[in-house]
């Protein structure tokens, strides 16, 4: 099957799980013999995936014809302006900048991928997609998350091909109660108009059905998986072991629950002083987190690495004795699977999609800091526990494969092609 796929990030240009998932899905689909044209908003560093036709939307010339394509209706309903939600509510912009600068620019932010003009970006991207939809031939459109909704709806309209919308994260996950209405509106439009929806977990499926009133039978759950890399083997045994390391890795934002990790760290250090906590990543709550670590007086045992990528991530996993994912709302969460590949035991928030499939991990409610601390202590204190978890996790990981996800997705394509597509001519 020929697939026109709209994405927002792809290795190496990425800031989180979406890029990782897109890589895993497209590689496995290509392995099944499908042909994928992957559209990205800006110039990526090309050559990352030989199995794909990588198209950069920023290089596509847009004529007036393509501008006027009914898409303007959606455009007119949206006001283009920077998203204030990207700034943390506890800090005014001045404070944020001061903190950011005081770190001597050591920390790269994720602004390159998720800039303040995100909606405008999404719409610019959409215009270019019209051209692609006209010039390329394909059987099905596969889009990932709200940023690609305008583009994929336009492509659907022009081509008459069915749209499969893959939801990796919702505005409710990212922003809690402070939902950006414009983004929510784009999500709603995409979910309603898509021919089929893929959710990365039952948790996400429930949220789509409840918050957007989408019939559950239109939504299929396809869990993510994890890609095995070569470096993983090389790094596997590096753990030095003198002082144990507990890792948080992810965007330092409301959604990921970094504040609960910091509070739990303080409780652990109170009784087990000889532990190092590492917070790897960047995000709008980082300043506040640095401040809080200072307030708690645990700075000598708590480190911020800034944004990590590629081998740096592999390195930090291999050095860690425990990985904690305290997310407030995590549609899936691939990183625990990555940690497990390095034999690192995992503590997961129950408010995560990945907890639906992982048995050999400890689970906590993100708000239950005491329980989180108690479990961190248990893993650090009992090597047999860490060993048993890692051993069983290895078996469990063997069954979590992108190939399985790709087979499920291909079946959904087939259903969409045979049953849906509004202006589709029978072929």
């Amino acid at each position, binding site marked *: 099957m020929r697939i026109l796929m709209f994405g927002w990030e792809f290795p190496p240009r990425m800031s989180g799980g979406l890029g990782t998932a897109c890589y895993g899905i497209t590689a496995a689909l290509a392995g099944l013999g499908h042909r994928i044209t992957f559209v990205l908003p800006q110039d990526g560093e090309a050559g990352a995936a030989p199995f794909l036709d990588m198209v950069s939307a920023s290089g596509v010339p847009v004529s007036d014809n393509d501008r006027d394509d009914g898409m303007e209706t959606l455009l007119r309903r949206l006001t283009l302006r920077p998203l204030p939600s990207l700034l943390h509510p506890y800090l005014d912009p001045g404070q944020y900048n001061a903190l950011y600068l005081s770190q001597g620019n050591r920390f790269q932010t994720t602004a390159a991928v998720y800039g303040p003009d995100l909606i405008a970006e999404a719409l610019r991207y959409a215009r270019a997609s019209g051209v692609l939809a006209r010039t390329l031939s394909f059987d099905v459109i596969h889009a990932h998350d709200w940023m690609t909704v305008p583009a994929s709806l336009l492509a659907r309209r022009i081509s008459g091909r069915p749209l499969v919308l893959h939801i990796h994260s919702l505005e409710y996950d990212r922003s809690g109660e402070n939902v950006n209405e414009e983004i929510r509106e784009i999500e709603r439009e995409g979910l309603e108009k898509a021919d089929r929806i893929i959710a990365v977990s039952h948790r996400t499926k429930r949220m789509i059905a409840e918050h957007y009133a989408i019939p559950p039978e239109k939504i299929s759950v396809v869990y993510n998986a994890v890609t095995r890399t070569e470096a993983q083997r090389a790094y596997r045994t590096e753990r030095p072991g003198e002082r144990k390391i507990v890792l948080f890795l992810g965007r330092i934002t409301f959604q990921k629950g970094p504040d609960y990790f910091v509070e739990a760290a303080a*409780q652990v250090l109170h*009784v087990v002083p000889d532990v190092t906590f590492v917070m790897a990543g960047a995000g709008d709550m980082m300043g506040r987190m640095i401040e809080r670590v200072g307030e708690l007086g645990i700075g000598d045992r708590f480190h911020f690495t800034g944004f990590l990528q590629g081998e740096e991530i592999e390195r930090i996993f291999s050095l860690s004795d425990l990985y904690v994912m305290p997310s407030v709302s995590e549609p899936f969460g691939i990183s625990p699977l990555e940690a497990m590949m390095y034999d690192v035991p995992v503590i997961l928030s129950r408010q995560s999609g990945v907890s639906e499939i992982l*048995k*050999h991990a*400890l*689970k906590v409610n993100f708000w239950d800091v*005491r*329980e989180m*601390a*108690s*479990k961190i*202590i*248990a893993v650090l204190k*009992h090597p*047999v*526990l860490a*060993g*048993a*978890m890692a051993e*069983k996790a290895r078996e469990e990981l063997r069954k979590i494969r992108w190939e399985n996800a790709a087979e499920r997705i291909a079946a959904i394509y087939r259903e969409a092609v045979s049953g849906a597509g509004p202006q589709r001519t029978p072929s």
Partner: protein
Amino acid sequence: MPSVCLYFQVHQPCRLRRYSFFDVGHLHDYEDGAENRRILDRVAEKCYLPAGALLLQLIEEYGGAFRVAFSLSGVALDQIEQRRSDVLEGLQRLSATGCVEFLNETDGHSLAFLSSPREFREQVLRHRERIRSLFGREGRTFRHTELIYSNALAAAVEKMGYRAILAEGTEKILGRRSPNLVYRPSGCKKLKLLLRNYRLSDDVAFRFSDRNWAEFPLTAAKYAHWLHRIRREEAVVNLFMDYETLGEHQWRETGIFDFLRALPGEILRHPDFCFRTPAEAAEAHEAAGEIDCPGFISWADEERDTTAWLGNAMQQDAARKLYHLETAVRRRKDEGRLQIWRMLQTSDHFYYMCTKWFSDGDVHRYFNPYESPYEAYINYMNILDDFSQSLKKTSKGEKR
């Protein structure tokens, strides 16, 4: 004359409360009292009371031709004595008929034999004394927790004066021989070995209400017919199961009580058959051969070994640390502490830590109050930590 030997195991563990690391040193009550009461009450209403009444009625009706045996774990007895005198009185009425045998086992429903011979002996003696004082009967038959068995256990049990011991009738020790015979444990002179017929036992215990089972529905007539078909030289059919099979694992709605009500009549319809308790069966039949069992077997899982309790590193670690405290516990000479240590020996605590989830998973999960074996281990180790500290603290206090 072939004997049908029916024995019911009564056991309820003392479930532990959720115990965080931050409770260590502060909270010294380890039991989840509310949960233990809730489950005991439920099982009493669904099983112990109605099943006990039915058994009594059957014994009276058949004038002694219907006989059964019970083994009551000390942990279950503790809870029944404290809370459900009606259940205890029911058992005592059964005992008064003279048609019911009460077996002996380790008081703490423990795996002590595998770690401490001394502790094993003390628990058996304690259990023997409790059964004697509650039911006025001397235990003649021994059964180990989870039907664990080995040559060494048989030798120890013979030395303690028992006449019979029970074990699982697995091919691992029988080879091609029949479980429906009385055997002699290798190395023993007087002790006799009765083996559970697991197919016929599990037909009732596990498969009775399984609609996908080819033999569903199982009637007493059909079941009795299977029993009657045993070969002429076979002497005894041992049907061993959890008492909770009656009304709890198999709900009343499945017809389990009707099955039981009809069973004695259907079996006794054949004039060659009779009911005997384990001690009576062991006495009535000569040993047909010797059984050699150098390693441990049990009635659990497909493996029929001890890996459900001591198979992984967490279980072994927990057991090692628990029995490592033995000297300190005994030195305290404090009955309360000794009993807590014994309560912590109950096999269920180790069973909850079992990670063999993928083949035998369902049964384990049904009985497991924890979300995962890791949670079970963490909880247990936190409690053990507090218990261990409490032993040290008091000794210091005494020196002063």
